[in-house]
Protein backbone atom coordinates (compact mmCIF):
# COMPACT_ATOMS: atom_id res chain seq x y z
CA UNK A 1 0.00 0.00 0.00
CA UNK A 2 1.43 3.32 -1.11
CA UNK A 3 -1.17 5.34 0.73
CA UNK A 4 0.27 7.37 3.56
CA UNK A 5 -1.26 6.39 6.87
CA UNK A 6 -2.65 8.90 9.34
CA UNK A 7 -0.19 9.38 12.21
CA UNK A 8 -1.96 8.07 15.32
CA UNK A 9 -0.14 10.23 17.94
CA UNK A 10 -0.72 13.36 15.83
CA UNK A 11 -4.40 12.57 15.29
CA UNK A 12 -4.86 11.74 18.97
CA UNK A 13 -3.11 14.92 20.15
CA UNK A 14 -5.24 17.11 17.90
CA UNK A 15 -8.63 15.50 18.60
CA UNK A 16 -9.98 18.53 20.50
CA UNK A 17 -8.97 20.70 17.55
CA UNK A 18 -10.47 18.32 15.01
CA UNK A 19 -13.74 17.57 16.87
CA UNK A 20 -14.50 20.76 18.81
CA UNK A 21 -12.69 23.60 17.02
CA UNK A 22 -10.37 24.01 19.99
CA UNK A 23 -8.67 27.35 19.54
CA UNK A 24 -6.52 29.69 21.60
CA UNK A 25 -7.43 32.93 23.33
CA UNK A 26 -4.43 35.08 24.14
CA UNK A 27 -4.74 36.88 27.47
CA UNK A 28 -1.91 39.20 26.52
CA UNK A 29 -3.21 40.62 23.19
CA UNK A 30 -6.85 39.44 23.52
CA UNK A 31 -6.84 37.79 20.10
CA UNK A 32 -8.14 34.35 19.22
CA UNK A 33 -6.57 31.88 16.84
CA UNK A 34 -7.05 28.41 15.41
CA UNK A 35 -5.82 25.75 15.92
CA UNK A 36 -4.93 25.88 19.62
CA UNK A 37 -1.22 26.33 20.28
CA UNK A 38 0.61 27.04 23.50
CA UNK A 39 2.19 30.19 22.03
CA UNK A 40 0.10 33.04 20.58
CA UNK A 41 0.93 33.41 16.85
CA UNK A 42 0.11 37.15 17.03
CA UNK A 43 2.23 38.35 19.97
CA UNK A 44 4.30 35.39 21.09
CA UNK A 45 2.77 35.26 24.57
CA UNK A 46 2.44 31.92 26.33
CA UNK A 47 -0.51 33.20 28.37
CA UNK A 48 -3.05 31.38 26.22
CA UNK A 49 -6.41 29.86 27.22
CA UNK A 50 -8.11 26.97 25.44
CA UNK A 51 -11.48 27.89 23.94
CA UNK A 52 -14.05 26.02 21.82
CA UNK A 53 -14.60 28.43 18.91
CA UNK A 54 -18.07 29.29 17.55
CA UNK A 55 -19.43 26.75 15.08
CA UNK A 56 -20.90 29.25 12.65
CA UNK A 57 -19.25 31.60 10.20
CA UNK A 58 -19.12 32.69 6.57
CA UNK A 59 -17.09 31.80 3.52
CA UNK A 60 -14.46 34.47 2.81
CA UNK A 61 -12.91 32.75 -0.20
CA UNK A 62 -12.74 29.25 -1.65
CA UNK A 63 -11.21 26.97 -4.24
CA UNK A 64 -12.30 23.68 -5.83
CA UNK A 65 -9.88 20.76 -5.60
CA UNK A 66 -10.05 18.41 -8.60
CA UNK A 67 -6.59 16.87 -8.34
CA UNK A 68 -6.39 15.81 -4.72
CA UNK A 69 -3.37 14.89 -2.65
CA UNK A 70 -2.92 11.18 -1.96
CA UNK A 71 -5.59 9.82 0.37
CA UNK A 72 -8.28 12.31 -0.66
CA UNK A 73 -8.98 11.14 -4.24
CA UNK A 74 -12.27 9.47 -3.39
CA UNK A 75 -13.77 12.81 -2.34
CA UNK A 76 -13.03 14.94 -5.45
CA UNK A 77 -14.14 17.43 -6.50
CA UNK A 78 -14.29 19.11 -3.09
CA UNK A 79 -14.19 22.67 -1.86
CA UNK A 80 -11.61 24.17 0.50
CA UNK A 81 -12.78 27.45 1.99
CA UNK A 82 -11.33 30.22 4.09
CA UNK A 83 -13.95 30.71 6.78
CA UNK A 84 -14.41 33.60 9.18
CA UNK A 85 -16.15 32.40 12.34
CA UNK A 86 -18.67 34.55 14.25
CA UNK A 87 -15.90 35.77 16.59
CA UNK A 88 -13.65 36.82 13.70
CA UNK A 89 -11.27 33.83 13.91
CA UNK A 90 -10.31 32.53 10.48
CA UNK A 91 -9.60 28.96 9.47
CA UNK A 92 -9.33 26.73 6.41
CA UNK A 93 -11.80 23.88 6.06
CA UNK A 94 -13.41 21.56 3.55
CA UNK A 95 -17.04 22.29 2.77
CA UNK A 96 -19.52 19.41 2.61
CA UNK A 97 -23.17 18.82 1.65
CA UNK A 98 -22.78 21.39 -1.11
CA UNK A 99 -21.87 21.17 -4.79
CA UNK A 100 -18.86 23.24 -5.88
CA UNK A 101 -21.03 25.40 -8.18
CA UNK A 102 -23.35 26.28 -5.29
CA UNK A 103 -20.62 27.86 -3.12
CA UNK A 104 -20.53 31.65 -2.85
CA UNK A 105 -18.37 34.13 -0.97
CA UNK A 106 -20.31 35.28 2.08
CA UNK A 107 -22.25 32.00 2.31
CA UNK A 108 -23.22 31.23 5.92
CA UNK A 109 -21.81 27.92 7.08
CA UNK A 110 -21.80 25.78 10.23
CA UNK A 111 -19.45 23.14 11.58
CA UNK A 112 -20.19 19.42 11.35
CA UNK A 113 -17.99 16.37 11.92
CA UNK A 114 -17.24 14.25 8.90
CA UNK A 115 -14.73 11.66 7.70
CA UNK A 116 -11.53 13.35 6.54
CA UNK A 117 -9.91 10.20 5.16
CA UNK A 118 -9.87 6.47 5.74
CA UNK A 119 -6.50 5.05 4.56
CA UNK A 120 -7.78 1.73 3.21
CA UNK A 121 -9.93 -0.74 5.15
CA UNK A 122 -7.63 -1.57 8.04
CA UNK A 123 -6.23 1.72 9.34
CA UNK A 124 -7.78 4.51 11.40
CA UNK A 125 -10.80 6.47 10.18
CA UNK A 126 -9.75 10.12 10.54
CA UNK A 127 -12.69 12.34 11.54
CA UNK A 128 -12.74 16.09 11.87
CA UNK A 129 -14.51 19.37 11.26
CA UNK A 130 -15.98 20.38 7.95
CA UNK A 131 -18.45 23.15 7.25
CA UNK A 132 -21.78 23.02 5.41
CA UNK A 133 -24.36 25.66 4.45
CA UNK A 134 -26.43 26.45 7.58
CA UNK A 135 -29.44 24.19 7.90
CA UNK A 136 -31.63 26.49 9.96
CA UNK A 137 -30.99 30.21 10.54
Amino acid at each position, binding site marked *: MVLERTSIPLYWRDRGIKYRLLGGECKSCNRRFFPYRKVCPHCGSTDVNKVNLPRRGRVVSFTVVHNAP*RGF*EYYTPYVIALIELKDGTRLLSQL*TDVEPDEVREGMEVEM*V*IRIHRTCGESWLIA*YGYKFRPVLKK
Partner: protein
Amino acid sequence: MKPDRDVGIVGWGAYVPRYRIRSEELARAWGRSWKRYAAGIMVEEKSLPGIDEDTFTIAYEAAYNALLRARIDPRRIGATYVGTESKPYAVKPTATLLVEALDIGERRTTGADFEFACKAGTEALQAAIGLVGSGMIDYGLVVGADTAQGAPGDALEYTAASGGAALVIGPGKDSVALIKASLSYVSDTPDFWRRQHERYPAHTRAFTGEPAYFHHIMSAARALMDQINTSPEDYDYAVFHQPNGKFPLRVGQKLGFSPEKIKPGLITSYIGNTYSGSALIGLSAVLDIAPPESKILVVSFGSGAGSDAFHIEVTDKIENVRELAPKVMDYIQRKRYVDYTVYARNRRMIHMMKDFSGY
Protein backbone atom coordinates in the same frame (compact mmCIF):
# COMPACT_ATOMS: atom_id res chain seq x y z
CA MET B 1 -40.52 -2.19 34.21
CA LYS B 2 -40.60 0.95 36.32
CA PRO B 3 -37.58 2.75 37.80
CA ASP B 4 -37.35 3.80 41.47
CA ARG B 5 -37.44 7.50 40.61
CA ASP B 6 -39.16 9.26 37.72
CA VAL B 7 -37.17 9.25 34.49
CA GLY B 8 -37.83 11.10 31.29
CA ILE B 9 -36.56 12.58 28.07
CA VAL B 10 -34.75 15.87 28.71
CA GLY B 11 -33.81 16.53 25.10
CA TRP B 12 -34.21 14.86 21.72
CA GLY B 13 -32.56 15.31 18.34
CA ALA B 14 -32.44 13.64 14.96
CA TYR B 15 -30.32 13.68 11.84
CA VAL B 16 -30.93 12.50 8.29
CA PRO B 17 -28.30 12.88 5.55
CA ARG B 18 -29.01 15.12 2.58
CA TYR B 19 -28.90 12.51 -0.18
CA ARG B 20 -31.86 10.51 -1.52
CA ILE B 21 -32.27 7.84 -4.14
CA ARG B 22 -35.68 7.00 -5.59
CA SER B 23 -36.70 3.36 -5.41
CA GLU B 24 -37.54 3.60 -9.12
CA GLU B 25 -33.84 4.32 -9.76
CA LEU B 26 -32.81 1.30 -7.64
CA ALA B 27 -35.18 -0.90 -9.68
CA ARG B 28 -33.82 0.56 -12.93
CA ALA B 29 -30.24 -0.32 -11.97
CA TRP B 30 -31.17 -3.99 -11.65
CA GLY B 31 -33.59 -4.16 -14.59
CA ARG B 32 -36.67 -4.72 -12.46
CA SER B 33 -40.16 -3.35 -12.82
CA TRP B 34 -40.57 -0.94 -9.91
CA LYS B 35 -44.36 -1.30 -9.84
CA ARG B 36 -44.23 -5.07 -9.63
CA TYR B 37 -41.21 -5.37 -7.39
CA ALA B 38 -41.05 -2.45 -5.00
CA ALA B 39 -44.14 -0.23 -5.05
CA GLY B 40 -45.92 -2.40 -2.45
CA ILE B 41 -43.46 -1.61 0.34
CA MET B 42 -44.55 2.03 0.35
CA VAL B 43 -41.05 3.54 0.41
CA GLU B 44 -40.67 5.79 -2.61
CA GLU B 45 -37.22 7.08 -1.77
CA LYS B 46 -34.56 6.51 0.86
CA SER B 47 -31.73 8.45 2.43
CA LEU B 48 -28.09 7.55 1.91
CA PRO B 49 -24.96 8.91 3.53
CA GLY B 50 -22.79 11.56 1.99
CA ILE B 51 -19.39 10.36 0.85
CA ASP B 52 -17.87 11.51 4.15
CA GLU B 53 -20.60 10.26 6.51
CA ASP B 54 -20.96 7.17 8.66
CA THR B 55 -22.74 6.08 11.83
CA PHE B 56 -20.49 8.22 14.05
CA THR B 57 -21.01 11.45 12.09
CA ILE B 58 -24.77 10.78 12.05
CA ALA B 59 -24.80 9.98 15.80
CA TYR B 60 -22.80 13.14 16.47
CA GLU B 61 -25.27 15.51 14.83
CA ALA B 62 -28.32 13.79 16.38
CA ALA B 63 -26.68 13.92 19.82
CA TYR B 64 -25.63 17.55 19.35
CA ASN B 65 -29.26 18.44 18.56
CA ALA B 66 -30.48 16.51 21.62
CA LEU B 67 -28.03 18.45 23.81
CA LEU B 68 -29.23 21.77 22.35
CA ARG B 69 -32.72 20.89 23.56
CA ALA B 70 -31.58 19.38 26.87
CA ARG B 71 -29.78 22.62 27.83
CA ILE B 72 -27.54 20.78 30.28
CA ASP B 73 -23.79 20.82 30.67
CA PRO B 74 -22.59 17.70 28.79
CA ARG B 75 -20.15 17.14 31.65
CA ARG B 76 -23.12 15.96 33.77
CA ILE B 77 -23.79 12.99 31.48
CA GLY B 78 -22.78 9.68 33.05
CA ALA B 79 -23.66 7.18 30.29
CA THR B 80 -23.10 7.41 26.54
CA TYR B 81 -24.54 4.62 24.44
CA VAL B 82 -24.75 4.19 20.68
CA GLY B 83 -27.06 1.54 19.28
CA THR B 84 -26.15 0.52 15.74
CA GLU B 85 -25.55 -2.40 13.42
CA SER B 86 -23.23 -0.42 11.14
CA LYS B 87 -20.39 0.41 13.48
CA PRO B 88 -17.59 2.31 11.73
CA TYR B 89 -15.17 -0.08 13.46
CA ALA B 90 -15.87 -3.75 14.18
CA VAL B 91 -13.70 -3.29 17.28
CA LYS B 92 -13.48 0.25 18.71
CA PRO B 93 -16.44 1.99 20.27
CA THR B 94 -18.38 4.71 18.51
CA ALA B 95 -19.42 5.96 21.96
CA THR B 96 -15.90 7.14 22.88
CA LEU B 97 -15.75 9.26 19.72
CA LEU B 98 -19.02 10.84 20.81
CA VAL B 99 -17.74 11.44 24.34
CA GLU B 100 -14.67 13.21 22.98
CA ALA B 101 -16.52 15.25 20.36
CA LEU B 102 -19.26 16.45 22.72
CA ASP B 103 -17.00 16.88 25.77
CA ILE B 104 -19.16 14.51 27.80
CA GLY B 105 -18.80 13.85 31.51
CA GLU B 106 -15.20 15.06 31.78
CA ARG B 107 -14.62 11.52 30.42
CA ARG B 108 -16.13 10.03 33.62
CA THR B 109 -18.91 8.24 31.79
CA THR B 110 -19.73 4.69 30.86
CA GLY B 111 -19.57 4.36 27.08
CA ALA B 112 -20.50 1.48 24.83
CA ASP B 113 -22.01 0.47 21.51
CA PHE B 114 -25.12 -1.70 21.61
CA GLU B 115 -26.06 -4.19 18.90
CA PHE B 116 -29.50 -5.73 18.49
CA ALA B 117 -30.27 -5.29 14.79
CA CYS B 118 -32.87 -2.49 14.50
CA LYS B 119 -33.61 -2.18 18.21
CA ALA B 120 -30.09 -1.45 19.46
CA GLY B 121 -31.02 2.19 20.15
CA THR B 122 -34.03 1.37 22.32
CA GLU B 123 -32.05 -1.39 24.06
CA ALA B 124 -29.54 1.32 25.02
CA LEU B 125 -32.48 3.44 26.16
CA GLN B 126 -33.59 0.68 28.57
CA ALA B 127 -30.08 0.64 30.08
CA ALA B 128 -30.02 4.43 30.47
CA ILE B 129 -33.47 4.43 32.13
CA GLY B 130 -32.13 1.90 34.64
CA LEU B 131 -29.03 3.97 35.45
CA VAL B 132 -30.91 7.26 35.81
CA GLY B 133 -33.85 5.60 37.57
CA SER B 134 -31.62 4.00 40.18
CA GLY B 135 -29.82 7.26 40.85
CA MET B 136 -26.44 5.95 39.69
CA ILE B 137 -26.22 8.80 37.17
CA ASP B 138 -28.14 12.04 36.57
CA TYR B 139 -28.14 12.08 32.79
CA GLY B 140 -27.57 9.57 30.02
CA LEU B 141 -27.14 10.02 26.27
CA VAL B 142 -28.65 7.38 24.01
CA VAL B 143 -28.29 7.26 20.24
CA GLY B 144 -29.78 4.95 17.63
CA ALA B 145 -28.07 5.43 14.26
CA ASP B 146 -27.26 3.42 11.16
CA THR B 147 -25.98 3.52 7.63
CA ALA B 148 -27.96 0.38 6.95
CA GLN B 149 -26.66 -2.23 4.53
CA GLY B 150 -28.81 -3.86 1.89
CA ALA B 151 -27.08 -6.12 -0.61
CA PRO B 152 -27.00 -4.74 -4.18
CA GLY B 153 -30.05 -6.01 -6.06
CA ASP B 154 -31.64 -7.49 -2.91
CA ALA B 155 -35.12 -6.53 -1.70
CA LEU B 156 -33.54 -4.81 1.32
CA GLU B 157 -31.78 -2.35 -0.96
CA TYR B 158 -35.11 -0.56 -1.45
CA THR B 159 -35.40 0.32 2.23
CA ALA B 160 -31.97 0.18 3.93
CA ALA B 161 -31.36 3.85 4.73
CA SER B 162 -29.22 6.18 6.81
CA GLY B 163 -30.08 8.40 9.77
CA GLY B 164 -30.28 8.52 13.52
CA ALA B 165 -31.82 10.05 16.60
CA ALA B 166 -30.62 10.76 20.13
CA LEU B 167 -32.24 11.23 23.52
CA VAL B 168 -30.85 12.80 26.66
CA ILE B 169 -32.40 10.88 29.55
CA GLY B 170 -32.66 12.50 32.96
CA PRO B 171 -34.67 12.89 36.16
CA GLY B 172 -38.43 13.27 35.74
CA LYS B 173 -38.52 16.79 37.15
CA ASP B 174 -36.36 18.10 34.25
CA SER B 175 -38.13 16.12 31.55
CA VAL B 176 -40.06 17.25 28.50
CA ALA B 177 -41.58 13.77 28.33
CA LEU B 178 -41.82 11.23 31.15
CA ILE B 179 -41.06 7.57 30.45
CA LYS B 180 -43.62 6.11 32.82
CA ALA B 181 -43.02 2.43 32.04
CA SER B 182 -41.17 0.15 29.65
CA LEU B 183 -41.05 -3.51 28.76
CA SER B 184 -38.86 -5.73 26.61
CA TYR B 185 -39.72 -9.01 24.89
CA VAL B 186 -37.10 -11.18 23.15
CA SER B 187 -36.87 -14.65 21.64
CA ASP B 188 -34.48 -16.58 19.42
CA THR B 189 -36.09 -15.94 16.06
CA PRO B 190 -33.65 -16.05 13.12
CA ASP B 191 -35.32 -13.69 10.65
CA PHE B 192 -32.31 -11.55 9.70
CA TRP B 193 -28.59 -11.59 10.54
CA ARG B 194 -25.15 -10.65 9.36
CA ARG B 195 -22.30 -13.04 10.02
CA GLN B 196 -18.89 -11.81 11.11
CA HIS B 197 -16.90 -10.27 8.18
CA GLU B 198 -19.90 -10.27 5.84
CA ARG B 199 -20.68 -6.95 4.12
CA TYR B 200 -24.41 -7.50 3.79
CA PRO B 201 -27.10 -9.11 5.95
CA ALA B 202 -29.09 -12.23 5.05
CA HIS B 203 -32.80 -12.40 5.70
CA THR B 204 -35.64 -14.88 5.45
CA ARG B 205 -38.14 -12.82 3.41
CA ALA B 206 -41.73 -13.61 4.52
CA PHE B 207 -40.42 -15.07 7.79
CA THR B 208 -39.43 -11.53 8.83
CA GLY B 209 -43.16 -10.68 9.05
CA GLU B 210 -45.49 -12.76 11.22
CA PRO B 211 -43.13 -14.71 13.52
CA ALA B 212 -40.68 -11.84 13.81
CA TYR B 213 -41.94 -8.24 13.40
CA PHE B 214 -45.61 -8.75 14.21
CA HIS B 215 -45.21 -11.31 17.01
CA HIS B 216 -42.60 -9.34 18.94
CA ILE B 217 -44.13 -5.89 18.57
CA MET B 218 -47.60 -7.14 19.51
CA SER B 219 -46.30 -9.19 22.44
CA ALA B 220 -44.34 -6.26 23.87
CA ALA B 221 -47.12 -3.71 23.27
CA ARG B 222 -49.84 -5.89 24.78
CA ALA B 223 -47.74 -6.90 27.78
CA LEU B 224 -46.89 -3.26 28.53
CA MET B 225 -50.48 -2.09 28.19
CA ASP B 226 -51.65 -4.99 30.41
CA GLN B 227 -49.04 -4.13 33.02
CA ILE B 228 -50.05 -0.48 33.33
CA ASN B 229 -53.74 -0.89 32.51
CA THR B 230 -53.87 1.18 29.35
CA SER B 231 -55.53 0.53 26.01
CA PRO B 232 -54.98 1.94 22.49
CA GLU B 233 -57.66 4.59 23.12
CA ASP B 234 -55.48 6.10 25.88
CA TYR B 235 -52.73 7.04 23.41
CA ASP B 236 -52.54 10.08 21.16
CA TYR B 237 -49.60 8.74 19.13
CA ALA B 238 -48.11 5.33 18.41
CA VAL B 239 -44.65 4.77 16.96
CA PHE B 240 -43.69 1.31 15.75
CA HIS B 241 -40.46 0.20 14.13
CA GLN B 242 -40.64 1.05 10.44
CA PRO B 243 -38.97 -1.47 8.11
CA ASN B 244 -41.29 -0.26 5.33
CA GLY B 245 -44.37 1.91 4.96
CA LYS B 246 -47.00 -0.79 5.42
CA PHE B 247 -45.91 -2.92 8.45
CA PRO B 248 -46.34 -0.13 11.08
CA LEU B 249 -49.89 0.60 9.88
CA ARG B 250 -50.76 -3.09 9.79
CA VAL B 251 -49.39 -3.85 13.27
CA GLY B 252 -51.17 -0.74 14.54
CA GLN B 253 -54.43 -1.94 13.05
CA LYS B 254 -54.01 -5.38 14.65
CA LEU B 255 -53.42 -3.75 18.04
CA GLY B 256 -56.28 -1.29 17.63
CA PHE B 257 -54.47 1.96 16.76
CA SER B 258 -55.96 4.12 14.02
CA PRO B 259 -53.66 5.24 11.17
CA GLU B 260 -54.08 8.86 12.37
CA LYS B 261 -52.18 8.01 15.56
CA ILE B 262 -49.35 6.35 13.63
CA LYS B 263 -48.82 8.64 10.66
CA PRO B 264 -47.21 11.61 12.52
CA GLY B 265 -44.30 9.35 13.48
CA LEU B 266 -44.21 7.32 10.27
CA ILE B 267 -41.25 8.76 8.42
CA THR B 268 -39.97 5.67 6.63
CA SER B 269 -42.04 6.60 3.55
CA TYR B 270 -39.77 9.66 3.13
CA ILE B 271 -36.37 8.28 4.06
CA GLY B 272 -36.56 4.47 4.26
CA ASN B 273 -35.65 2.23 7.18
CA THR B 274 -32.88 3.75 9.29
CA TYR B 275 -32.62 0.52 11.34
CA SER B 276 -31.50 1.48 14.88
CA GLY B 277 -32.60 5.03 14.09
CA SER B 278 -36.06 4.05 12.87
CA ALA B 279 -38.27 4.02 15.99
CA LEU B 280 -36.28 6.84 17.63
CA ILE B 281 -36.56 9.14 14.58
CA GLY B 282 -40.28 8.35 14.58
CA LEU B 283 -40.44 9.34 18.26
CA SER B 284 -38.44 12.51 17.52
CA ALA B 285 -40.90 13.47 14.76
CA VAL B 286 -43.76 13.05 17.25
CA LEU B 287 -41.96 15.07 19.96
CA ASP B 288 -41.45 17.80 17.32
CA ILE B 289 -45.22 18.34 17.24
CA ALA B 290 -46.88 16.68 20.28
CA PRO B 291 -48.71 19.06 22.65
CA PRO B 292 -48.25 18.77 26.44
CA GLU B 293 -50.05 15.84 28.10
CA SER B 294 -49.93 13.73 24.93
CA LYS B 295 -49.45 10.03 25.54
CA ILE B 296 -47.15 8.13 23.20
CA LEU B 297 -46.60 4.39 22.79
CA VAL B 298 -43.25 3.51 21.22
CA VAL B 299 -42.46 -0.09 20.25
CA SER B 300 -39.22 -0.92 18.47
CA PHE B 301 -38.30 -4.18 16.77
CA GLY B 302 -34.92 -5.75 16.24
CA SER B 303 -34.32 -8.92 14.27
CA GLY B 304 -33.02 -11.91 16.06
CA ALA B 305 -35.49 -10.93 17.65
CA GLY B 306 -37.09 -8.60 20.16
CA SER B 307 -39.11 -5.48 20.92
CA ASP B 308 -38.85 -2.69 23.50
CA ALA B 309 -42.08 -0.90 24.41
CA PHE B 310 -42.30 2.49 26.15
CA HIS B 311 -45.18 4.47 27.63
CA ILE B 312 -44.31 8.17 27.34
CA GLU B 313 -46.22 11.23 28.58
CA VAL B 314 -45.34 14.69 27.28
CA THR B 315 -45.00 17.48 29.89
CA ASP B 316 -45.61 21.21 29.49
CA LYS B 317 -41.83 21.85 29.44
CA ILE B 318 -41.71 20.63 25.85
CA GLU B 319 -42.82 23.96 24.39
CA ASN B 320 -39.69 25.66 25.79
CA VAL B 321 -37.24 23.48 23.90
CA ARG B 322 -38.90 22.39 20.66
CA GLU B 323 -37.44 25.19 18.55
CA LEU B 324 -33.90 24.92 19.92
CA ALA B 325 -32.72 22.44 17.27
CA PRO B 326 -33.66 21.41 13.72
CA LYS B 327 -36.73 19.15 13.48
CA VAL B 328 -37.01 15.83 11.67
CA MET B 329 -38.98 17.49 8.87
CA ASP B 330 -36.21 20.11 8.39
CA TYR B 331 -33.86 17.26 7.53
CA ILE B 332 -36.42 15.40 5.44
CA GLN B 333 -37.08 18.47 3.32
CA ARG B 334 -33.37 19.10 2.72
CA LYS B 335 -32.57 16.68 -0.06
CA ARG B 336 -30.63 16.10 -3.22
CA TYR B 337 -31.43 13.15 -5.47
CA VAL B 338 -28.62 11.00 -6.79
CA ASP B 339 -28.48 8.18 -9.32
CA TYR B 340 -27.26 4.63 -8.70
CA THR B 341 -23.69 5.50 -9.65
CA VAL B 342 -23.36 8.20 -7.00
CA TYR B 343 -25.23 5.93 -4.57
CA ALA B 344 -22.66 3.18 -5.13
CA ARG B 345 -19.82 5.65 -4.65
CA ASN B 346 -21.25 7.23 -1.48
CA ARG B 347 -22.00 3.81 -0.02
CA ARG B 348 -18.39 2.82 -0.80
CA MET B 349 -19.50 -0.10 -2.91
CA ILE B 350 -16.76 0.85 -5.36
CA HIS B 351 -13.32 -0.42 -4.46
CA MET B 352 -10.38 1.72 -5.49
CA MET B 353 -6.88 0.73 -6.52
CA LYS B 354 -4.85 0.63 -3.33
CA ASP B 355 -2.42 3.25 -4.65
CA PHE B 356 -4.97 5.25 -6.63
CA SER B 357 -3.75 8.79 -7.13
CA GLY B 358 -6.56 10.09 -9.34
CA TYR B 359 -4.56 10.92 -12.44
